[in-house]
């Protein structure tokens, strides 16, 4: 852990914070920085970075939590699958508590639905091999980071000729969401904290056209306190010194300009890029991943029919607006009253990466 502790040095943290605070001193107005990654949300709160920085810098959490951006109809579909006989749902733990229109996987599990928590999609393939008489459906949610793993699992299933393994793909791509946010008139973003993990896969290039078109300073940043502080300093430099907005990479020890070619080719092999519905952002063109036709035998949507209930949303829940940084969790009437991590109404309260959950847990007021 020596390697990690060096990125958590108190003295250096304070030095960088001082530099940032001096830079913004003469700046007129607030500076809104948005991250679009659940791990960033979590690290920023967990390390207490914002408590070191000037009030002029505002931290916005964007649609970076995979569970949170997954729309109700996907959850309802997963719930419907979990009610089928001889079916096992394999999923990352976060999805269990997400409320669908009338139920959740956690409740289905308590009523006898077979729901298993896995840490990797490959584990769900193992479950399929162990239970050949059951259909095993893996809930494929997540961005460019998790999708390559799912792609490689589908390829393994094809190679090993496993016929009872399926994926319900709800994978999404981050750059189209960033574009949608910038197109929105409701929100003002002065700079993007670009996601470190997603960038490790996609590299720097996908951000170039965004920065060129919208003139938004963007820095790819890592997750340790010093990463975040250094990256924020780079952003503030671009913003306060009126530099030409550009894509900078603070997280060079992990993110290469061209990304991870092997992972990208896996995505290309297994998935088609299609339109996709995001909670809060609606349907965005070319923002999701659907399993290619040649692998359609693993596509749950195409192979397994079931009746899905009519989607209902809680009209009071403002997760959609929270996800876009338009509103803060405490502006929601449900927040911390009826909606708590114990009894979440909206998905942003479920995942530890969700904005509402982070606000609740670390009580940012």
């Amino acid at each position, binding site marked *: 852990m020596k390697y990690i502790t060096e990125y958590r040095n108190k003295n250096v943290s304070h030095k960088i914070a001082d530099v940032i605070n001096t830079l913004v001193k003469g700046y007129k107005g607030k500076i809104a920085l948005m991250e679009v990654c659940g791990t960033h949300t979590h690290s920023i709160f967990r390390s*207490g970075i914002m408590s070191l920085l000037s009030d002029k810098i505002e931290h916005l959490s964007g649609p970076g939590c995979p569970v949170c951006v997954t729309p109700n109809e996907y959850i309802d579909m997963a719930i419907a699958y979990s009610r089928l006989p001889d079916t096992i749902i394999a999923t990352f733990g976060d999805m269990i508590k997400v409320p669908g229109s009338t139920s959740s996987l956690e409740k289905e599990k308590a009523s006898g639905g077979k729901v298993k928590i896995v840490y990797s999609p490959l584990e769900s393939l193992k479950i399929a091999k162990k239970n050949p008489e059951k259909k095993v459906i893996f809930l494929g949610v997540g961005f460019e980071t998790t999708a390559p793993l799912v792609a490689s699992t589908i390829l393994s299933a094809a190679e090993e000729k496993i016929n009872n393994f399926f994926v319900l793909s709800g994978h999404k791509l981050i750059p189209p969401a960033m574009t949608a946010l910038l197109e929105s008139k409701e929100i003002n973003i002065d700079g993007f904290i670009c996601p470190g993990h997603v960038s490790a896969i996609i590299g720097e290039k996908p951000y170039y056209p965004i920065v060129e078109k919208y003139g938004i300073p963007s820095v790819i940043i890592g997750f340790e306190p010093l990463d975040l502080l250094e990256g924020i300093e780079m952003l503030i430099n671009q913003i306060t010194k009126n530099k030409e907005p550009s894509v900078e990479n603070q997280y060079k020890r992990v993110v290469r300009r061209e990304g991870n070619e092997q992972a990208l080719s896996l995505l290309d092999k297994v998935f088609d890029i299609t339109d996709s519905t995001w909670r809060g952002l609606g349907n965005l063109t070319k923002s999701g991943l659907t399993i290619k036709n040649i692998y359609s035998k693993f596509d749950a949507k195409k192979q397994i029919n079931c009746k899905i209930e009519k989607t209902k949303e809680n009209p009071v829940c403002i997760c959609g607006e929270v996800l876009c940084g338009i509103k803060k969790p405490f502006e929601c009437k449900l927040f911390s009253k009826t909606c708590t991590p114990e009894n979440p109404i909206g998905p942003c309260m479920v995942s530890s990466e969700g904005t509402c959950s982070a606000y609740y847990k670390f009580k940012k007021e």
Partner: protein
Amino acid sequence: MKKKQREEDKILLSHGSGGKAMSSLIKKMVVEKFNNYILNELNDSALLPASKDKKICFTTDSYVVQPIFFPGGDIGTLAVNGTINDLAVMGAKPLYLSCSFIIEEGLEMNILDRITNSIKTASKKANVEIVTGDTKVVEKGNADKIFINTAGVGVMQKDFLLSKKKIQVGDKIIINGEIGAHGLAVMSKRENFKTDIKSDCAPLWSLIEQMLSVGGVKFMRDPTRGGVATVLCEIAANADFGIQLHETDLPIHDNVLSFSEILGLDPLYVANEGKVIAVVDKDIASVMLKQMKKDPLGKEASIIGEITKKNTGRVILETVIGGTRIIDRLTGNQLPRIC
């Protein structure tokens, strides 16, 4: 306003995780119904009146850990140490245990043999006797291998009463060693991760006895389910003081720290089975630490925080980089069936 019970409401795993869901369940289903002055204290053990200068301490706990054998212990050692530690943190010397088994049909006899041997060894080590018990066998599939319930009786020495009410601003918070090992050891075994992490499962009385002899101990708790964070939040809840913790002072083994990083767990919320958190008088803290370090279970003891006048009712953590954040009780289910 009381929430109405709905017919479709069911018990979920999070109702047993030691967090908020469990407290509200206990309040509604246990405290409000069984209501009496001993129970209502909601201590780790019940304090029963015995004589003028002595009190009897009585507690019970059930063990459903899965897997039943894990690095550093098994369900048997846990069933002994878990229960007697609940007595010890009250300041009571554990004396007698009951031990009941609920066994699933088909369990290999040699597994039961191993478990009862562990119980024997653990109770010998802790100097307690198993004096009564019960055995039930249920059909295959109606239990998971074996569940154990133990109840314990101890005697509280002299008129030494630990209480939250004794806590004052300035008091120091001490823990006897590195946190988070038990939960992660069980988890790594269950998920087949290769780590060197061993459960810290151990009987705490001998250490606690020495701590009490130093004096100045105001209150103690063992941070099992829900971890250190949950215990401290319980101490601060509704109190007229706050708690300040220092992240850099938290003793956490490198292995636990890296494993937690990888899995996205916070060691502050991970269960321990051989740890005691003590709130002690500030003037005695360094002497206490010295005394604790002499005991094998207190070698890594350290002061992790203090009682503050500000932030009433809250636990505030000063993070490694000198920022601050609020520590809340565990919500949801970080790791099921770890004890």
